[in-house]
């Protein structure tokens, strides 16, 4: 044991510095401490045991008992163990880790919006309904589609909703059809979403450029194909230049084109899916429209579609009556039904609209241009150091492989971990699966030239380290509070909660 380490009675290894050694809330608890004070009860107190009878809770849950300052310190200390966009570049490909404007947080907390109950009468909800209406109109314009639902809670939930629209439309034509085509480069959510909609998934092999193989598509599309789920630009950051032809092949057999809008950050203000043959698509407000990722959510996954799919949108839909007042219409006989209670992650709608207002048409276009500029700059500066499996032009992200480094036994995951030592979050590792050992880098528009150059320097330095001191890279990170964690043990004997000691 190193001298800087001390033992505590439970024999757990701890560090000498309290901020690096914050225990679980439960381990810090002490009976009788409290961080709350309820106002005096202004109605008669009740005897809970008598009122509830057998339904009365006799044993409270083992929640921690702490004071307010301890809670503040606890979560503040934990927060310092996180990497964040606010700290530096977060080039996770396909996740679009762009700046999350703080005004978004402020306006989402405005009392009249944050405290609105979802069942308040429409007459008391006109303000929030106007916000929802304006966001819907903006997103319809940005995508070039005809109609939209904001109900889905995240991207995968949007995929589910979009594929249900496809299914409902096919059913209205007399046959729901059986299969969904999905390229081998797709996100895992695509096949999972198609499956829960009752479809079988057929994989479409990518061509030599990493795009859709038109011959394979022509062969595989038949009268039982409901749709193709296509990410455009693709997960290797390439725009499908044959997109019109792809739509034509599908439509000729009565199949629809679903677009996964995860990569819309490459298109906003420059091209609209509705103009290139897409029938239905989802957006990720937490990617393209700057709502915070928050450590994994909440997201929001609006689904936009062409007019022929509108009758099938989830209930309710926002409508405006003759006197201009807005309200919800539940009378939608062809609807796929609800996909979520209430109307969606409204707090995210407010933030996304604030982002659109801050940008305007010129800002949205410049944002897209800068995102693509940044990715291409990185590509130009790193292609002499890392293998570029597809030489097709990049849009908002660039995918390298670890082919050159693998010779030295260093994998993409190792390079990613070493990047942490240089002060950056890793890129997306080993995805898309069509690239063996992928390094998927998406800088977004939020990076300055200075930050990009620091990242490029780091990546070049790591490439040199792989040649000179590969062990240094293979054992990275070396600068973090914890080193590589034992994931095998975590999965073999799962410890998924703290337990009180009896």
């Amino acid at each position, binding site marked *: 044991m190193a001298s800087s380490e001390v033992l505590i009675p439970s024999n757990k290894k701890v560090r000498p510095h309290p901020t690096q050694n914050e225990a*679980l809330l439960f381990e810090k608890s002490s009976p009788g401490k409290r*961080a*709350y004070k*309820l106002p005096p009860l202004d*109605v008669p107190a009740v005897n*809970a045991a008598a*009122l509830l009878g*057998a339904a009365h*809770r006799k044993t409270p*849950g083992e*929640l921690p008992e702490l004071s*307010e300052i301890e*809670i503040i310190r606890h979560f503040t200390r934990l927060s310092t163990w*996180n990497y*964040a966009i*606010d700290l530096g570049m977060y080039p996770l490909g396909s996740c679009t*880790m762009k700046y*999350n404007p703080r005004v978004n*947080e402020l306006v*989402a907390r405005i*009392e*009249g919006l944050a405290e609105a109950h*979802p*069942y*308040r009468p429409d007459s*008391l909800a006109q*303000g929030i309904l106007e*916000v929802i209406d304006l966001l819907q109109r903006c997103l319809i*314009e940005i995508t070039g589609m005809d109609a939209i639902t904001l109900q889905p809670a*995240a991207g995968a*939930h949007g*995929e589910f909703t979009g594929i*249900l629209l496809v299914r409902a439309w096919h059913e209205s034509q007399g046959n729901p059809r059986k299969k969904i085509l999905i390229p081998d480069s797709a996100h895992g959510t695509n096949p*999972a979403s198609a*499956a829960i909609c009752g479809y079988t998934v057929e994989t479409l092999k990518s061509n030599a450029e990493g795009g859709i193989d038109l011959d394979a598509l022509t062969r595989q599309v038949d009268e039982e194909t409901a749709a193709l789920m296509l990410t455009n630009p693709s997960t290797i950051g390439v725009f499908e*230049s044959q*997109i019109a032809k792809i739509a034509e092949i599908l439509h000729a057999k009565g199949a629809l084109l679903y677009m996964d809008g995860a990569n819309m950050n490459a298109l*906003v*203000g*420059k091209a609209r899916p509705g103009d290139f043959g897409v029938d239905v698509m989802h957006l990720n407000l937490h990617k393209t429209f700057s709502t915070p990722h928050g*450590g*994994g*959510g*909440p997201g929001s996954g609006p689904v936009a579609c062409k007019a022929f799919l509108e009758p099938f949108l989830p209930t309710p839909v926002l409508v405006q009556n003759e006197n201009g007042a807005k309200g919800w219409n539940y009378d939608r006989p062809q609807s796929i039904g609800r996909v*979520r*209670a*209430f109307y*969606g992650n409204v*707090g995210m709608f407010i933030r996304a609209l604030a982002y659109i207002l801050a*940008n305007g048409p*010129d800002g949205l276009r410049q*944002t897209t241009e800068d995102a*693509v*500029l940044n990715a291409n700059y990185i590509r130009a500066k790193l292609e002499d150091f890392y293998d570029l499996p597809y030489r097709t032009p990049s*849009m908002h992200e660039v995918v390298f492989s670890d082919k050159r480094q693998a010779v030295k036994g260093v994998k993409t995951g190792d390079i990613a971990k070493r990047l942490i030592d240089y002060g950056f979050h890793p890129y997306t590792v080993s995805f898309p699966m069509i690239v063996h050992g992928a390094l998927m880098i998406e800088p977004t*528009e939020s990076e*300055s030239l200075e930050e990009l150059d620091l990242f490029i320097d780091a990546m070049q330095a790591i490439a040199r380290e792989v040649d000179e001191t590969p062990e240094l890279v293979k054992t990275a990170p070396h600068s973090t509070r914890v080193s590589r964690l034992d994931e095998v043990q*975590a999965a073999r004997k*799962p410890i998924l*909660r703290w337990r009180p000691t009896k």
Partner: protein
Amino acid sequence: MRYLPKSPIEREQMLAEIGAPTIDDLFAVIPAEHRLNRDLDVPRQHAESEIIDYFRAAGKKNSTGFASFLGAGAYRHYRPVIIDSLVQRGEFLTSYTPYQAEITQGTLQAIFEFQTMIAELTGMDVANASMYDGSTGAAEAVMMAVRVTGRHKAVVAATVHPEYREVLATYAKHQGLPTSLVGYELKTGRIDLTALEASVTQETAAVLVQSPNFFGVIEDIPAIAAIAHAKGALLIVSIAEAVSLGVVRPPVEADIVSLEAQSFGVALSYGGPFCGVLAVKEQFVRQMPGRLVGQTVDGSGYRGFVLTLSTREQHIRREKATSNICTNQALVALMATIFLSVYGKEGIGELAEHNLAKADYAAKTLSAQPGVKLRFTGAPRFNEFVLQTEEAPAQWSQRLLDAEIVGGIDLSRWYPELRNCTLWCATEIITREQIDAAAKALAAVPARA
């Protein structure tokens, strides 16, 4: 544009390094006929002050300052100040899903604490890292029961939130999963146990009930569990009002609990983002959807946390995954974790008892008005109750609105048989003065001409 950190000169310099004459050369791969050669028709670029003005005006137009008796799956509780102080720290707010464990230990440990708290409160063994909300959580729980049992039918109580049932119907429709509905006892508002017993068969994968149910009535969980388990079906208990767990016995006989944790410090925000979460018995954990955080050690033996058992998930298993869920409600789960740290073991009980007292006073006071009675009696309730009025709700609700009070929600929109019945909620936020004012407005039936 103020969010973009590049000068025009830098852009030119970068283009030169790339070897592209103009920015549009980088978009040349998009066929010309598909390129947008005009400005998007969206509002012009706004100053920050204008953005705030716009949303403040929207907030004002929404009307504030009304006393509200609305519940029905969305509950107004006091939100301690430190929740927003902490969740707005950029390290939480602007971090991604903790796939890179070495630099996301903050989020991971907080989720581990969340999982523990939810398991403790619900009486289950393990909880996941969150689902979208209570409605989708309930639907995912039913699909999970199908995987566990290998059976393909579900029995659902009519007293489950109607919108949760609609969501389940959307999911079940394409899974070959027929669901049958079981009604409620007219006197108590509880699920009809005789009808339940008749509905559950050897083919039933799951029985889904809600407790406190949509009418605010607490179900007899041990009796329901006995019926479900006698036929080998799993029992799923949906809980929409999480604060009830401070004083109501947890559904320990359940196999899966689907909780909506919005009541734990999450703003109403017109219905979202909320925070669903599933808690289950240990033996079902590998069939559970959603992310899970587990404890482990690093190379030097220090305790650390990682996302684990991910072979259940879509990014590994694709179409064979337990669910398509990816992004969940992490930051909202953090809000709930902070809320529960503030109230703690004793406080959550005290808070729940305040709710019980306010609702008891409100139910007694309002039902004592002429032409008003309590619709369901004889079974315990938490903080919601149903009133039946001689007057149609449309008539008295306007009188209440004139007094800046939003009364209970009309139940006939989902239950046509419950004519003139409204669902009321009284949390710790409501004051005696507001309850008395509502009673006065209810009683002020205009004299007949």
